[in-house]
């Protein structure tokens, strides 16, 4: 009897744990919104904001700001891959705020993505100072404070750098900084070897569809990074360049991390 009760309690507890875990997992999934849509730009009395509609809901992606912002606006004329998490922040420009959010402008042109909505008083974005690029202070400004420098230490024998990409993307305007960091480190340590590994990403969309990057993208990325570093006259180290033809496993959670090149710089 006692044993039976214990068993029953155990089963109930297990069921409850699973239920709570399962519910949490479901809630987490509901908070993630991965989808492809035409971006929409809404004018305001100050700077425009960028939105996208998915399953009848309007989502706020970002607003026009400075090129150094961590999230920059998408493009009309192209669809955008949105990988974001629903935040509890108040709506902006009528859209549910996705934060964090990762946006990939898809390379193919799509003339149907052309919606510019006019300004409406109810979507007023106020910020100070009213400079043309966008807000530099307040809630709507992005935090671009660089992370605190780590304490001084001996230079490691090797250092790994991760270069992130848009979906099906190669090096673009975002990459001058990361490439410069690799170049400077390699020069500082008189690098002996540079290993470059290109990855091919995949993303699980919220509708269950899986998007996989083009088959040769890992190769293209790895070879391009090698070419760029050598083109910047970093020719002394030996280069090991390889890539993954198989796409990463798409889980719907932070799949953007799979679109990457990993560069390992080894010192002499």
């Amino acid at each position, binding site marked *: 009897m006692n044993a039976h009760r214990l068993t029953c309690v155990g089963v109930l507890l297990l069921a409850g744990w699973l239920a709570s875990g399962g519910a949490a997992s479901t809630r987490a999934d509901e908070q993630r919104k991965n989808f492809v849509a035409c971006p929409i730009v809404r004018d305001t009395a100050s*700077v425009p904001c960028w939105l996208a509609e998915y399953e009848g809901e309007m989502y706020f992606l970002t607003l026009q700001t400075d090129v150094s912002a961590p999230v920059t606006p998408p493009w009309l004329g192209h669809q955008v891959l949105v990988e974001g998490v629903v935040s509890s922040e108040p709506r902006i420009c009528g859209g549910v705020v996705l934060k964090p959010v990762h946006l990939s402008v898809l390379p193919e042109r799509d003339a149907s993505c052309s919606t510019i909505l006019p300004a409406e008083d109810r979507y007023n974005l106020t910020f100070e100072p009213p400079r*043309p690029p966008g807000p530099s202070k307040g809630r709507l400004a992005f935090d671009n404070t660089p992370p605190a420098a780590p304490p001084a230490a001996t230079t490691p024998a090797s250092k790994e750098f991760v270069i992130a990409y848009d979906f099906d993307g190669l090096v673009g305007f*975002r990459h001058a900084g990361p490439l410069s960091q690799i170049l400077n480190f390699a020069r500082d340590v008189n690098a002996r070897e540079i290993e470059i590994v290109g990855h091919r990403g995949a993303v699980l969309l919220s509708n269950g569809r899986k998007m996989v990057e083009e088959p040769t993208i890992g190769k293209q990325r790895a070879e391009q990074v090698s070419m760029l570093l050598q083109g910047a006259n970093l020719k002394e180290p030996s280069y090991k360049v390889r890539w993954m033809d198989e796409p990463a496993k798409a889980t719907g959670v932070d799949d953007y991390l799979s679109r990457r090149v990993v560069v390992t710089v080894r010192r002499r």
Partner: protein
Amino acid sequence: MSMTTRSLVLFGCISVALATVAAQSGSPKQWWAPGQGTSLPALSTYENDRGQVGVLNASGQLDTKGHPFFEPIGTNGRACVTCHQPADAMSLSVRSIRERWAATGGKDPLFAAVDGMNCPTLPRDDPRSHSLLLERGLIRVALPWPPRRPDGTRIDPEFSIEVVRDPTGCNTDPVYGLQSANPSISVFRRPRPVANTKYTTHQNFGVSPFIGKNGMPAATDPLTGKPTSMNLMSDARVPTLAVQADDAAKNHLQVAGSLSAAQIARIVEFERQVYVAQVASTGAGNLVEPDGPPALGPRNLAAGDAGVLGNNTTRYVFPLGGKWATLPRTSSETENARNAARESIARGHDVFMFRTFWIKDSMHLNSVGLGNPTKRTCATCHGMHMTGMDTANGWMDIGTTNLPWASEVPLNPWNEAKPQMPLFRVSCKPGVKEHPFLGRVIYTQDPGRALISGQCNDVGTIVMQQFRGLAARAPYFSNGSAATLRELVDFYDRRYTIGYSEQEKQDLVNFLGAL
């Protein structure tokens, strides 16, 4: 229309253009002939239609006798100064070109066959052979195809290129054309001002080992190995003033071999200390009064900070101060007219700085993190303090050479004018991502930076020019397609559907003309 009739029409157009030389207001522009040997004062001023431009030698008066910038050091009688005239803000105006034709019957070395003609194979001394120079101030620039790296190795371009239209005959010429033994592409471009070079060659904001617009390696100074700002010439094909001097000497002055190190050093030394800007306005009077607007005049340029961003409210691109925003009215009509002109310049500044519009489908602007479209202002792209250039890597496609925006002659049975600019069809190769705004096939009058980089995304991108001394050096844009500042403003108004009011246009023109 038969070829003979077309030829007559063209001849008529050029004749009209040349006839207008005599009708233009004021005395002829002051022409600096190669080897004339006079001194260039510390500060000299030259008349133009909007007032006077000032040329400042910051190092003091320059003795030009024997100076390689001013002497005909090549084989065709030209000097650097031929195409970089002090009276033309160290560039070359079409007005000066026409005056030289009229004065010399086309014998001036400026009209040398190598690049002062539409193609060297055409008959000399016939104005039709020089129509692009006489009508739009364009010099022929022949670039190798496929492109070459600085070490001479070939670049495998991302696109193929075909000649669609060849009114000059040079791109299909058996000696000079795309199918010749030395395949080259002839494009036609305006000479740029050789002045204010501390801004065009700065080592400050935006200069990086990798180009901020596309992540490609930046061109480096062959002497120091350092990355450069890549803001020289229409296509950034030369990294430094020294390389540019040698390149120009070979290709435009037809110097045999290379310039000596001493010659290059003297040319660069001169170019590093010469500043140009408008100093007087026909309407607004003296632009460089004490305590006047801190952006105006060559002395302020010489004293300014180079290579810093100015498209914000803490450091303007062209700081005018606030004095001209509202000026008093007096009993003097002359003074009132002057004050009204100054207020117009101040309003034009505000249009430049704060009048927003939607900037759309412009490669290397909308593609670099601003979004497409972006609601911003003139100062967004023209952001470098004191010059209005991009701070670095300043090539961009605003549609001056790419269709559908480039200026094209309207073709219809009632228009006898025919296109004068070449037209190329650029096809991005399979496996290369298409141009994000123009697609896989692009029609262009000048592929611009793409003839250097070989990249599809660079087709029709042109390094933006500095805004100084504009009044002295019409026409505008790299292909001379805007004859006046008003046409320049109208191009932007059309390209970006801005909807400027007439007042805004006039103010913007007055502002630009005062720089």
